[in-house]
């Protein structure tokens, strides 16, 4: 087991405390995975194994959940995760071009991470903010009416 992904006592206590909030231990799985992802940036297989032990379920059950949700990452991803909406409203307002612009600027294609591990680029279906298209989501925060200039600014700010 990779030493780096061994859960420390404090984290284990947090996860165990979670189980008290739910009627079954299995129900605590999603919040537990969120905590792990916050800590490591992705969900390492070692952590999955340990969560399975803590929650008294099979490792396959954890695997089923982490592979089902596309927002759980099974491999290391960039520090900043950029999602570009590619649905109709955003594309009419230039969302598609934004995606190309970002890809070119970061020198990655969609679903990839930059070499320095800073940025990951993804597409996302409709985010429900069509009135302010085009929309991108960076680390969970919405950015509206995005233009290439705005992206330049944002990328410099994020470093």
């Amino acid at each position, binding site marked *: 087991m990779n030493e780096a992904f061994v859960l420390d006592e404090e984290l284990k206590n947090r996860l165990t405390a979670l189980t008290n909030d739910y009627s079954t231990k299995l129900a605590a799985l999603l919040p537990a995975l969120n905590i792990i992802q916050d800590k490591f940036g992705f969900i390492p297989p070692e952590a999955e194994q340990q969560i399975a032990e803590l929650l008294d379920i099979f490792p396959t059950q954890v695997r089923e959940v982490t*592979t089902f949700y596309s927002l759980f990452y099974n491999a290391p991803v960039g520090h900043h995760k950029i999602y570009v909406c590619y649905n109709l409203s955003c594309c009419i307002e230039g969302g598609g071009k934004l995606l190309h612009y970002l890809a070119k600027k970061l020198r990655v294609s969609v679903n990839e991470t930059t070499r320095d591990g800073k940025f990951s680029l993804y597409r996302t279906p409709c985010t429900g903010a069509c009135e302010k298209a085009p929309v991108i989501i960076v680390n969970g925060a919405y950015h509206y009416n995005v233009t290439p200039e705005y992206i330049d600014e944002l990328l410099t700010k994020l470093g």
Partner: protein
Amino acid sequence: MIRLKINDIPIEIEEGKTVLEAARAHNIRIPTLCNQADLAPYGGCRLCMVEIEGYQRPVTSCTLPCHDGMVVKTDSPQLKDLRRFTLELILSEHPYSCLICDKKEDCAKFMLCIQKEPVTLGCKYCSKDGKCELQVLVEELEIKEIPYPLTYRGLEVERWDPFFERDYNLCILCNRCVRACNEIRHAGVIQFQYRGPDTVVGTAFGLTHLETACQFCGACVDACPTGAMSERYGKWGGVPDKKVSTSCSFCSIACEVLLNVRDNAVISSEPEHHPLCVRGRFGISQFVHNPKRVTEPFLKKGTRIVEVEWDEALQAAVEKLREFKGRTGIIFSPNLTVEALDALIELENSGFGILGTSLDSLSAYADFSLEQFSKPAPIVVLNTDIIDDFSVLMLQIRKSWKEKTPLIVIDSAQTKTADKADVWLQPKLGKEEDLLQLLFSESDKRNTTGVANELIETVKAMFNGNGAYLFYNPSNIAHVKLPGSVKAIPLFARPNLSKIMNMQVQNSNDILHDDSIDCLFLVGESPSLKKTYKVIIAQDHFIPACGYDIFLPAATFAEVDGSFIALDGKRRTLNKAIEPVGKSKPDDWIIKEITNNLGVEAGTTTRAKEPTQKATPKQVKPTGKYPFHLVVRENNYRFRNKSLSSLMKGFKKFRNDDCLWIHPADAENLKLKDGKKVQIISKDFSLTMTAKVTDSVPAGTVYAFHDPSAGLVMDKIVRLECIES
């Protein structure tokens, strides 16, 4: 009771049953794919849709509980359309050329078209042809063509595991294998992964089944309605002519098993009422039709071994037995039928030889029945790998309990059961009995077992005054004194114990050490010999390791009518599924022929019978000359004179019992690497084995499986020499 109407037939059914169950109980057909009687309803395939009066749209009958006054329709034209549409969608991801081709009736016979569909896309080349549930449904719903293009998923066929292989391109995601693994076996090895069109059945982290906790019980293979999961051996066996119900003889639990027979060959076996383990599910057909099996009588003439007729072989055996009258040792395997054992007693009574078997510690024998386990209590497992060796017993006991009770393992080695246990106590070797004392009685004895006091307290708290069930391996521990609340159940690997106890036979070791014996008659056993014998008569399926002068081929348990006695003391019947292979004959027939030909009246015993000596386990202490403690574990994957892993590749991969487990520190001292040969030397024997370096055994000890033909019978102190680095 609830009254409802299905297709205008009034039906009465108890509360809590689903509409599907009610319909099935009255022979009303509702097509399903994801439903399996012993699994919880899933509602995945949407084929069991029914119309119910007062409901706006059709509902799945497998998930709908019956209620009073329900009026159900299961066969309207609209429903048929709906089902056809659903099945068409399911088939758009399953190669369907084998299902809807207009030439399919004549295909296998005449090979009408030159251009065949590729093998991967089906045609008549699916191993499930004739047994596929999709074929039945396509026929029933009269689907002639599918309006959608086929999406072939192009997944790699998973052929890297023993016993079964998986082609998930044929998978329709009915979830039956996943539920069978979780609900029937509680193994949790496979699960759906990813979602939407990417959904696939898989193991955690993409491990092979060998690397996971898979027990290869085959529950998933039996559950699969398509050809996605298939048995490696019986895959192309075709549709069976008949199914014969008999009992699996590989171990003492003796599960009921259905043998699929075609053209006088066992093509596969399947569970009848209860789940099977890997031996019963995948072992039987490979064992019966093993290429190493010898089915003709052989005779040693001078230096040559010649195939002969039965008359000649029997005549030779009888002559030798006459020649060595009173100087013959008959060593038999407990794996025989009761009839064969009776015949052996008659043979011994005729005074030609003495009977012996290699069972030790019979004094611990106790009958038990599953009713004994009515009260849930913690399970303590001592020195036995219950999940590997007695998985079916464990399942049945735990299935009858609603609540889950803790599983506590006491074992000096880290077995598969120890991995799965709630608590694993690792005492020092030889301290197991002390640990039991500490656990179950309020003794003030000092704790020298090597297990932390806190851990013992934790386990004691689990018992909570409820008592416990203790399963132990009788060959390692002889006397366990326990309070009344603890039920101790010795787990013997071999059947027929109550019968053999009454036979008052010798220990085979005594016979082998007896210098006056010059002739050995081995019935299904192959001991390691201490001296050279003038004649060895062997009666078995396979050539014994010790060699022979006369070989009499015996029929396997699938080829005989008879019975044997299981661990619970009850008689299990064996039903003949196929005619004996080749010239082989049933054990009892051979022994009776010999006895009759010897022509001596019964009741003229020459030698006074002595009762079997109780074997007391000797404490072995490693010394300077022999620094290692060799622990011999009971081997439940052994049948008559062979271990299953020496006969079948799958078992060799799954559980190689021909290896010596050694701790990495000891291996490093010896400069021994994993998979290399090592020589084991003790005072009275030497043996070469393959080393398996693992930290699951404590340092200073080495573990091997029970193997009488190699001389591995009892714990010993040994010296190791690395002969290959």
